[in-house]
């Protein structure tokens, strides 16, 4: 990776990844890899006990394999000079989501992976953080699956521009000293840590 470059990696993601890439244009970033955990083929509603083993693997374990591979690739390109990794994932890992057990299993695994990467890669000047957003922003087909959550305190759901601002803050080389953190960009719905 050359200097001052942002790469957005998003296996199976909806149009969100492209919109995020566009929204990040012109932001003052150093070398940064953005990983979007929003695989539309995995965030599919269904009762856990109705899934066969292949579906479990596709919706849970494959999401984790993809994240592992993406973080390892990020380490490979950033390890020489340091840089930033920002993982964008849905908020549903914090409160849980009925009907999405395998995918949420993966999401919380990815968050723990992010924190472990932050602990291991800090010495190489690689900061790793997470930005959580409403799941329907990443996977529009899941709209309505989180109706049990409180409405956003700010009165509106976030836009891709709101998310890009948080990603850019983590990617900004002028802002140092934050790693292993999670920021929730959902307008004030999920407020637990």
């Amino acid at each position, binding site marked *: 990776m050359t200097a001052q470059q942002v790469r957005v990696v998003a296996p199976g993601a909806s149009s969100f990844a492209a919109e995020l890439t566009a929204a990040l244009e012109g932001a003052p970033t150093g070398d940064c890899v953005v990983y979007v955990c929003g695989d539309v083929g995995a965030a599919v509603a269904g009762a*856990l006990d109705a899934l066969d083993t292949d579906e479990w693997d596709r919706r849970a374990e494959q999401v984790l394999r993809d994240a592992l591979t993406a973080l390892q690739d990020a380490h490979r390109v950033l390890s020489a000079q340091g840089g930033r990794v920002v993982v964008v994932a849905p908020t549903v890992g914090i409160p849980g989501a009925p009907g999405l057990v395998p995918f*949420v*299993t*993966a999401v919380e695994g990815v968050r*723990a992976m992010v924190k*472990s990467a932050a602990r*291991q*890669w800090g010495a190489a000047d690689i900061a790793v953080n997470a930005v959580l957003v409403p799941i329907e922003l990443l996977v529009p087909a899941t709209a309505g699956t989180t109706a049990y959550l409180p409405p956003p305190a700010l009165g509106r759901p976030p836009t891709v521009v709101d998310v890009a601002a948080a990603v850019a803050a983590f990617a900004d080389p002028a802002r140092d000293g934050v790693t292993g953190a999670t920021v929730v960009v959902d307008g004030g719905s999920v407020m637990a840590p």
Partner: protein
Amino acid sequence: MNAVELSGRTVIVTGGAAGVGRGIALACGDAGAHVVVASRRENGVEVVDEITARGGAASWSQCDVADGDSVAATVAHAVERTSGLHAVVHNATSNRSSEPHRLEDVSIDVFDEHAAVSLRGAYHCACAARDALEASHGTLLVMTSPAGIEGSATLPMYATMKGALRGFAKSLAREWAPFGITVNVVSPLAFSPAMANAIVEDPALEGRLNQRVPLGRVGDPETDVGRGVAFLVSADARYITGQTLAVDGGHFMSI
């Protein structure tokens, strides 16, 4: 005397032959449960013998949680031998769990070894036990760790699995609540065979650990962690679901 009452209840403990799993099995047996000690190796029989020697009821079921048919057979064993199934404690983890590693070096094969036991095992336990737990308004319990909440500098795959299990439990708690099934998580700090080996290698480790725990000691798998689990699988915990209970002497207070 046991404050927790598990008479008439049947509890499956995966990975119940050693360490924390053995402690959970013994505590549930002391509280009156019929304990199904589920383990891959036959050493689970030794725990059954311990429970029955104390006057409790227990049986061993050979179980590889990575194999759905094997888990289904263990659930069938529990239901056929007793009055039903009231709790499953998924405690088993990969044999590689305590091997330090770097995240950037983890192969997909190693990932799969971890996931097969921790995650696919949880999926298999849930699917196999669902009908029996609905019939009893029972509970599913999974084991996590501070590593799953705050990450780990030495065991990133273990941390990933333990974090994932919290997402699994919180989501399944919501999904199964309408059926009267609760799902919770326990985060223990207790002596295990791996910790005992580490202390043999580094005798000062125990003192350092004790200093970091507000209650001043590492927990006992049976009398500390096991009794906490026994409460969560009892009828008295029927209004608790989707929660993580840290049974760790106050070691981790950031949930």
